[in-house]
């Protein structure tokens, strides 16, 4: 009788430890989260504050009284942000699928086929990942100007099509597909293209989704190459447009904040919807 009660007491105490421990953990996690969220909150609050309210001050006052869209209106008036977002969408709908196709084809060859020189080709493609952007900046700009594609949509699109990261992920994905699948299709009389498009590609759809999601994030946030290759502001992607807004004298801190918030919203929505795929995909890429 007494041993039962002490056992129960002990169990209850262990439960208490657990609850307190979890509570402490939640507090720590929340404090860290605050550090990651605070700059965004400050940005959003600066964007929403009415003109009559100070942006800065001790102690900080983050609540807009009342929230106002004036700064957003001013940002969209100062620079054609909608045009920039449209440009980013043009870049995204061309670069993301085309680059995914390149990665699919290459990943299939590297991951599922056997041929002479496979490793050399693969190392060449992978090597591009370890080349810092600034090293290739000048010569690639000269190549683009030789090709006559600077200052146009093509100049941004074409050099962005090769994604070593995407090729790597697709290679891992295709290598993971059982060879029996291909052999069965071949016995059924499928040719190599049919095997690829009807059997193998459907089998790697999750990895393809990851490549396309990351492709979209990269395109939406691309900055350095468009900055170099474009002279004409009308073709700027959104991130470059925001930097342009930050650089021109006519913009004030409020409209800059509003423009930045507007530029973040689409990517945050994508991230909210696809966060599981994004994070699991990233982890999978590391393991592979």
């Amino acid at each position, binding site marked *: 009788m007494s041993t039962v009660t002490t056992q129960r007491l002990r169990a209850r105490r262990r439960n208490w430890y657990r609850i307190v421990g979890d509570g402490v953990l939640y507090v720590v996690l929340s404090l860290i989260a605050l550090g990651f969220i605070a700059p965004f909150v400050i940005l959003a609050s600066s964007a929403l504050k009415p003109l009559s309210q100070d942006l800065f001050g001790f102690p900080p006052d983050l609540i807009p009284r009342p929230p106002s869209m004036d700064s957003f209106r001013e940002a969209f008036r100062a620079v054609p942000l909608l045009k920039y977002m449209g440009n980013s969408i043009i870049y995204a709908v061309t670069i993301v699928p085309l680059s995914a196709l390149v990665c699919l084809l290459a990943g299939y060859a590297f991951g599922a086929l056997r041929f002479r020189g496979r490793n050399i080709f693969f190392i060449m493609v992978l090597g591009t990942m370890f080349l810092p952007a600034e090293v290739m900046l000048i010569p690639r700009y000269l190549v683009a100007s030789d090709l006559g594609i600077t200052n146009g949509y093509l100049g941004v699109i074409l050099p962005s099509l090769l994604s070593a990261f995407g090729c790597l992920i697709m290679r891992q994905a295709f290598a993971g597909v059982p060879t029996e699948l291909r052999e069965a299709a071949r016995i059924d009389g499928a040719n190599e293209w049919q095997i690829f498009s009807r059997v193998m590609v459907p089998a790697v759809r999750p990895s393809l989704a990851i490549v396309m999601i990351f492709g979209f994030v990269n395109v939406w946030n691309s900055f350095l190459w468009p900055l170099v290759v474009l002279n004409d502001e009308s073709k700027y992607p959104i991130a470059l447009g*925001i930097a342009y807004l930050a650089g021109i004298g006519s913009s004030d801190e409020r409209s800059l904040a509003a423009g930045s918030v507007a530029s973040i919203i689409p990517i945050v929505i994508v991230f909210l919807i696809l966060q599981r795929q994004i994070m699991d995909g990233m982890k999978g890429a590391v393991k592979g």
Partner: protein
Amino acid sequence: MSVATSTRRGPAGPDVSTAQPRKRAKLREFHWFVPYLFLVPVMMLFVVFFAWPAVLALQLAFYDYSIVNPTVFVWWDNFVHMVNDPRLRRAALNSLVYLIGLLPLTVVVPLLLAVLLNQKLRAIGIFRFMYYLPVVTSMVAVAVAWRYVFHDLGILNWALTSIGIVDQPIQFLLDQRTSIWAIILVEGWKSMGSYMLIYLAGLQAISADLYESAKIDGAGPIQRLRHITVPLMVPFILVTLTLEMQDATQIFTSVYVLTAGGPADSTLSLGYYIWSLAFEQFQMGYASAISLVLWIVLILMAVGNYAVSRSKRFATS
């Protein structure tokens, strides 16, 4: 029928097909050139946007090349000029500061974050989401957001003055003593989430039994971290180290938006210097020479890192 058998000319070695040779032999094999067809797009892009530029870069480094002036072959002048360029020396030193300053923020802190997030708790996904959010937003927007944090009357100065660490608000981005640390903070803050995710992948591969048996043996949480987590994380630490080197040498956008290399070159990174030489001052030949040297340095660093990881692996296995 020579075509049908030619695929078997492929790399000889431990072939899986020996297990079932008869079944294999019956299959209609594809033409030998089919794999290469799949590689045509990727190799075309490689040649046009990597190989060709690489050759150009090599050539350009020996020329005095600018868009406005005629091109002159200058032998080693660009490289000699590098030795006597105080701004280059400053940029290289700064890049070293970036490389070392970012280490704790990208290699150490994310490991602790990953350990915290690897607990079985309700709603842990929300925290993961928030820690990762800066990774998916653009560096431009992130840098703009931090402008408000670093403002004279911004939240950071308010916090520091009210705790009493400083008496007067600091102009973080305009003060030569703080500007580079401000950039490091922004860069580290933005990329922490992706490093954390790398560690999280590694942590989830560690068997829970290890921790259980350590607990039974009386090891506390810190001992478990020190003797189980960290040793098993060594391969992942090497991965983050390699990525950190890449990130640190590529710092550009944050500098462009926040300081433009200033004040007095205190935040000038190699990437920003190369860009500014080539596209603001049109000294493309000289900038190419710097790129080339940087490239060689980075290759050497990558090889060194690889060698270390190889030797470590031999030591543990």
